[in-house]
């Protein structure tokens, strides 16, 4: 394959691809992201392929498998270009109809269209779907347009133009200035001004420098980076090459967590394709700039999302953070100046170079520019990935985009920022989603995870869950995190089990403060946030557990007991069969009963009962 050495050659390459596709009358786009994949989108793809071949139209109809589109609740998703007809919940059996009706005859299939829950009407095109309409999909929109394993697709939509511009038209210092002017802040959780980081690294003494892409997305409930890396790896590569040029690095690493094998595979393919075209490796775009990327896998440790722990892991050691009295931009990987940025941060760079820093800065709020991808999950109708302008109020995301809670439940709070973040109660949903507002409210945007919680979520249990998670993931090096988080978990378990005392609340607050000031790394420093924010906004729940020995949400096992409501019980026996502890007895069609001595309160019966006959006391 001929390497691309000039801007003109890139354009010619692009025109050739577009030319080769001019016979396409339509393109069928099938989402192959993790969500749709688990809903067997692969079978849909196979069925469509077969149908296209059978009907002999493979010359004019192109089938494109892409990464995640974001509307995971409605998958498998199929979009028909160029009109962008939007079909959801597609099954392999629909393939024949899609080809004969929509492709051959331009007819839309009513039953596959999305129904707007507010108006009850069907919606034909993707852009009209309310879920997408309220978003600003600067990055995510590209996922529909590219097959992640095709560099041709990426170049066809204008990919690597920004790289050409950066290498051939702009000086490295000017690139750094553009990034500073854009106001881009780190998207991985830290929110540090990216331009400033690049400037410091560029000025650090030394000829050997590194850039790293942190794809160790460990926040439970967050999968934005996964979708960008799996669905559009070239976007991230392009950002990294531009960054390396600006900073003066010749070697880069992408550190992908172990639990994302598809992302590892797709980015490996992308790196090879980029190398083949001369966009990575020696003399990129015919210049004297050489840069290459190596892929490294994580070992299953949340703490390796912390920059110094990640670098230790890259060096083949245990992922223990080290004190950052000297920043990693000066003393990083192998003690050399290193710029580490998150996947989404790198993904924003090509747009900033191509469209200019003022375009990026025109979006967002005063201190938080641009857009942010959020993972909206939990007790919400429209779970999925969402990209909005920074500063969008929480209520817009939860209600307009998310559609509110399913089954008419009342939403109580959102948890943002993963284990390092906190909970924001529903009466504060007017707050904008930006770095500073959420930080002032006791939480943070973090990497973008937004978990919605309803009235059946116990906030003490939520705090306990996060403390448990952090205790599991703590590296164990420093006293405040290893012992402090453990003791906080011990205390909160006492509260959750009904043995709490009022002094426990002030002890939790004091211990939380101590850990936040003295811990060695970010994991420890933010470990107490879950407790602090729930104590701040939901103190009544803690007090109910302590004073009344009650769990208002009916979650904490030690404080509840289950019984069967004789009015609703139909004697179907589902609970009896489901109970792993054989605590339920009863005859067919007669009211069943629970033996409280055998009952372990695991809650399985309650989740299986279709008649709501299991009550929580």
């Amino acid at each position, binding site marked *: 394959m001929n390497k691309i050495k000039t801007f003109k050659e890139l354009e010619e390459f692009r025109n050739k691809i577009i030319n080769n596709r001019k016979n396409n009358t339509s393109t069928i786009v099938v989402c192959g992201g993790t969500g749709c994949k688990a809903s067997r989108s692969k079978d849909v793809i196979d069925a469509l392929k077969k149908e296209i071949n059978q009907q002999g139209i493979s010359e004019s109809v192109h089938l494109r498998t892409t990464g995640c589109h974001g509307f995971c609740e409605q998958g498998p998703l199929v979009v028909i270009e160029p009109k962008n007809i939007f079909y959801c919940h597609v099954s392999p059996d629909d393939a024949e109809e899609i080809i004969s009706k929509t492709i051959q005859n331009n007819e839309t299939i009513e039953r596959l269209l999305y129904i707007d829950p507010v108006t009850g009407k069907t919606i034909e095109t993707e852009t009209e779907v309310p879920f997408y309409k309220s978003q600003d999909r600067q990055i995510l929109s590209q996922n529909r347009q590219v097959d992640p394993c095709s560099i041709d697709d990426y170049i066809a939509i204008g990919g690597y133009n920004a790289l050409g511009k950066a290498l051939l038209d702009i000086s490295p210092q000017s690139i750094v200035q553009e990034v500073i002017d854009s106001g881009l802040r780190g998207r991985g959780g830290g929110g540090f001004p990216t331009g400033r980081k690049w400037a410091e690294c560029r000025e650090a003494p030394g000829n050997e420098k590194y850039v790293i892409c942190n794809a160790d997305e460990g926040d439970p409930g967050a999968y934005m980076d996964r979708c960008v890396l799996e669905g559009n790896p070239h976007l991230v590569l392009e950002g990294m090459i531009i960054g390396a040029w600006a900073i003066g690095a010749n070697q880069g690493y992408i550190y992908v967590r172990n639990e994302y094998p598809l992302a590892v595979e797709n980015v490996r393919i992308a790196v090879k394709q980029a190398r083949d075209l001369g966009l990575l490796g020696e003399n990129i775009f015919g210049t004297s700039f050489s840069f290459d990327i190596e892929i490294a896998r994580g070992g299953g440790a949340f703490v390796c999302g912390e920059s110094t722990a990640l670098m230790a892991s890259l060096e083949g050691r245990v992922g223990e953070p080290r004190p950052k009295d000297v920043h990693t931009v000066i003393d990083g990987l192998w003690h050399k100046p290193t710029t580490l940025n998150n996947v989404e941060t790198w993904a924003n760079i090509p747009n900033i170079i191509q469209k200019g820093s003022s375009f990026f800065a025109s979006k967002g709020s005063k201190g938080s520019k641009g857009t942010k991808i959020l993972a909206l999950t939990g007790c919400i109708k429209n779970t999925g990935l969402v990209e909005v302008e920074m500063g969008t109020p929480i209520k817009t995301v939860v209600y307009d985009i998310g559609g509110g809670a399913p089954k008419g439940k009342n939403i109580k709070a959102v948890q943002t920022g993963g284990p390092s973040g906190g909970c924001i109660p529903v009466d504060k949903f007017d707050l904008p989603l930006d770095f500073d507002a959420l930080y002032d409210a006791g939480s943070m945007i973090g990497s973008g995870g937004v978990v919605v919680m309803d009235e059946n979520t116990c906030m003490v249990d939520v705090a306990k869950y996060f403390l448990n998670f952090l205790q599991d993931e*703590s590296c164990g*090096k*420093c006293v405040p995190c290893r012992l402090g988080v453990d003791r906080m978990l011990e205390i909160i378990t006492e509260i959750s089990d009904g043995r709490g005392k009022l002094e426990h609340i002030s002890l939790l607050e004091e211990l939380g403060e101590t850990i936040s000031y003295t811990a060695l790394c970010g994991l420890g420093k933010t470990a107490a946030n879950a407790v602090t924010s729930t104590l701040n906004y939901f103190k009544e729940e803690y007090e109910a557990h302590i004073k009344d020995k009650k769990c208002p949400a009916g979650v904490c096992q030690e404080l509840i007991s289950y019984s069967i409501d004789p009015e609703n019980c139909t004697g179907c026996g589902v609970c009896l069969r489901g109970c792993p502890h054989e605590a339920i007895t009863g005859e067919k069609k007669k009211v069943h009963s629970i033996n409280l001595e055998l009952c372990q309160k695991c809650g399985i019966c309650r989740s299986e009962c279709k008649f709501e006959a299991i009550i929580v006391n």
Partner: protein
Amino acid sequence: MIQEVTVNINGALIKAAKGTSILDAALDYGICIPHLCRVPYVEDLGACRLCIVEHVVNGRSKITTSCTLLVQEGMVVLTNTDKIRKLRRNLAELLVAEAPNSRAIQDIALRCGVRDVRYPFRNNDCVLCGRCVRVCTGKLAEKPLGFVGRGKNRRVEFPFDLRSELCNDCGRCIELCPMTMPACDGMMKPGEEHLCGNCESKLSDDDLALGYCVGCYFGEGFHCERSPN
């Protein structure tokens, strides 16, 4: 020529060689900063967090460990503010609740101002200070001792029973271990752990408040060079 810089610790102007940590500079001068995981002449980890100080930059204080903070010309550091004392006391309280059966740990707790322990006592025989790991060299320069596991499961081990093959029997690990001396009242039974408090009466309030070195026997357990022994 070793370059010297002047730093300001608690108002005292101290000269120290470049590359020295604030902790070493302070101890040399006679200012007591409690510490546990520090071993003289061995690389500092900043793991126990007891040696925290306030590093004042542009009027704002940053809390950091003095063992990893290297001296720089004009640096201003406060080692004994109310905030630092409170944080240090809480950390020491966590340590002594974990391993009360050691004289050194009890002494550190007392020196940091712990009087009551608000957590249920446990009776661990290792506080994971890492001193043994960092001084161990073993035979054939093949380090036999190390940390394994993570978080709550972190422990110090010889892997696969290799002790007999690789251990030098130099005894440095035992010498430096803070757990080797039991509390003054002797070994406590599980469930009967407590702060013995014997030394408390022997100390004046001045000794504890000022942060100056009193050449106390408290330093023995963790090998503070200034302790009389």
